[in-house]
């Protein structure tokens, strides 16, 4: 699987490349600045890109802007955005186009290599990987009378994990539930939120994220 890494700090870039190569990814480019990233995104055939939000030369949100631009040109281009901090604002921008293949994680999550690699795989497969912190914020800031507040605590837990982009199997394992029980919970959540039911995991996650995205305060 061909991967692009855009990260300006040498230590982190090097570490990411090693980690990815150790897990059998082919790192086709490791760039350190915005213009390089733009060039790489435009020219290289990529299965997934791992991009830091803040990049030279401006050290603002260069990486995020490049990613958004590239995804505008080719919707669904799989991208995993990393940052030292997570913001609902950025998450909303990344999710706004409603196509999959998006990840947004704290850099801290790299520490847990297994889960990080899993997230990279999910994103490259068109799924999503949202940082638990983002999802928690999206959920806590729902308006008081919103249907989300009518969910049972267990359903809320399931929703939280599902919104992060996790599979049914993972959710069951994490919450000590059978996969069919997870499926029932999800069906109930979709009914309460009045969302269209779908068998496709990715489409389901996108529906939930779109829902959370629009109902939050703006």
């Amino acid at each position, binding site marked *: 699987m061909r991967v692009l890494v855009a990260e300006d700090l040498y230590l982190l870039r090097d570490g990411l490349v090693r980690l990815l190569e150790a897990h059998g990814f082919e790192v086709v480019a490791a760039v350190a600045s915005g213009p390089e990233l733009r060039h790489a995104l435009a020219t290289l055939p990529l299965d997934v890109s791992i991009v830091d*939000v*803040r990049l030279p030369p*401006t*050290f*603002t*949100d260069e990486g*995020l*802007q490049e990613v*958004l631009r590239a995804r505008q040109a080719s919707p669904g281009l799989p991208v995993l955005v990393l*940052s*030292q*901090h997570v*913001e*609902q*604002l950025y998450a*909303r*921008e990344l999710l706004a186009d409603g196509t999959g293949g998006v990840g947004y994680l704290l*850099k*801290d999550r790299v*520490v*847990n290599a297994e889960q990080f690699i899993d997230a990279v795989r999910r994103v490259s497969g068109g799924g999503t990987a949202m940082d638990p912190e983002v999802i928690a*914020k999206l959920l*806590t*800031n729902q*308006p008081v009378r919103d249907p989300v507040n009518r969910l049972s605590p267990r359903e809320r837990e399931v929703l939280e994990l599902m919104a992060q982009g996790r599979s049914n199997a993972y959710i069951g394992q994490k919450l000590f539930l059978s996969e069919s029980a997870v499926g029932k919970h999800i069906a109930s959540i979709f009914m309460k939120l009045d969302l269209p039911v779908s068998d496709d995991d990715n489409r389901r996650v996108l529906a939930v994220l779109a829902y959370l995205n629009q109902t*939050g*305060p*703006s």
Partner: protein
Amino acid sequence: MRSFGKLARWTYKQWLLAPLRCLLLVVLALVGAVLAVLGSVLVAAVVTVPAIIAANRRLAELGRRLSSQWGGVLIAASYPPFPADPVRREDGWYEHDNQLYRHPHVPRFMRRSASLAEDQTVMRDWLWLMVTPFVGGLAVAAPVALIVAGAAVAVMASSPAGVGGGAALAVAGFVSGPYGLRLYAMWSKVLLQPVADSWWRRSGIGRAFGQRWHAIWRGAGLAGLSLGACGMGLILVVVGVVSWGGLLPPLILLARPYLNHYRRRVDEWSGIRFESPYRPQPSPPRPEANGKYRVGRTLHDDVKSAVAMQRYGWVLKDPATWRDLAWMITAPVLSPLPIAVAAVAGVAFFGLVCQPLWWAPWAVPIGLIEGVWVTPWYIWYGVTLLEPSLAVVPSWVSPLIGLAATAVMVVVAPAVLRLRVAWDHLLLRPTKQARLAQRVHQLTESRSDAIDAQAAEVRRIERDLHDGAQARLVALGMNLATVEQLIDQDPAAARALLAQARDTSTTALTELRNLVRGIHPPVLAERGLVDAVRAVALDTPLPVTVTADVAGRLDAPVESAAYFAVTEALANASRHSGASHIAVDLRHDGERLRITVTDDGRGGADPSRGTGLSGIRRRLGTFDGTMTLASPTGGPTVLRMEVPCAYSSPRTSTS
């Protein structure tokens, strides 16, 4: 004309009832006028104003209702609501204008009186009551008079022609009845409709006239105040000479509040800003090594005499003191002109124009009872006594002369007021030097505030790092050292320690992230003020609407100060106000950044309580920014912040 066309559709019943209604309206007009006159006499004798005004309002309401029912003219009423009742404090007292009262009656009365004094509808109702007998009253009196006269002629007449003429008169009375009612209603509308609907307000004439009319009295008011100041100035000079200047500083300090009051008046009446020009009071001297206090070239043993001496220098060396004094002494030079304008306008309008109109209610009873008839023109005769050559003018012309003189005064008054204010401007405004001295004082204060705040901030960061991330990294290092030891002997324990080390590093990262957020939030660095505020808005548990018109990035320190001011305001609003919605508006006009935070909570926020708002003020003060808070009880709370600043770079990104 459309309104008159409607008359054709009136039923015969209405035509027949019209004269009766006219009669009732004539009675209402007469009763109203008598009550209004009685009321004004009572008000002059300082009897409860609100009760009388309430009575007048009821009569005006009756006039409105009858106008629409009988005259077919709808007149809207718009009375401002009565002010809220005084709120009982926790200690059982009632507050009004910095005074405490045991019972709510007095403050309620004062609040109502104050709001009525500013209420234009009060005067208009009153005017309507008093003038109606002469205008609208005549319109409804005519049909009644025609019928009565016709009936009288018909009864008394001996010839058929006379009977016929009388009948014709009576019929004319009946026919004109509805028209009289309509005229009455149209007249009532002139004074009883809401002020904003009247043509003189809509055409702008009312405003222009009002300003000039006010200028007459304001000029005289300022002249009067300055004459008072002149008296003070003379006392100051005499006392200063007698005491060899020794008593001057305390007396001058006593006079300053009066002059500042004058400045505020000029401010309010002319719209020209008059700042206080005085130098800020110096901080008290500190003891030197030998325990003495130095003021200038003199050493004082105790702090009291040092402070007194310092005050002496502070007051007497301030140029504003001497400019004040010069202004006080010269006050009589420019005072006569505005006072003369006001006197002429007063005599001309109230004496020559209003007095004859006002004559009937009081002179007729006197004449009937005493048999002495006062002439309506007696003010004019007073004027002719002063100027005998005017006696050739017939006295009935005098109201016209009065109107003309008033008009002339109305025209010249603004110029006279401007002249007065220009003179004040010359002496009472701070000089350039005084302004600089004040600025230095203000900068010194805001700088020391900023330094204090910065020092406290650095101290907090140091403590957070020391107790947080630093300690965790030490623990991490120790863990790894232990792992190194254990890795061969006890791999299972080593693995557990490694997991622990990973957790420690995650916790340290979280702490660092929170710390960084407190120092300079990453979104602010990455996106600038507007998006950073949007990000905070998303994280706030209440719905927050953010609107913005900021075309680029601002200087980083200003962005940071503004950002923290907004977060503080949002935190306050969501914590204390009980609001259900907050709106943040950010705007930059090329020179200043204006931020408005509005919440729909319960209001009553007090900047002197709590550190949040004063913190905002201090943060913005470093950049010469200002903060104003409007938070009436019951909401909404509006916090306005303004910081002068320029763009640091035009926006580059597209979002």
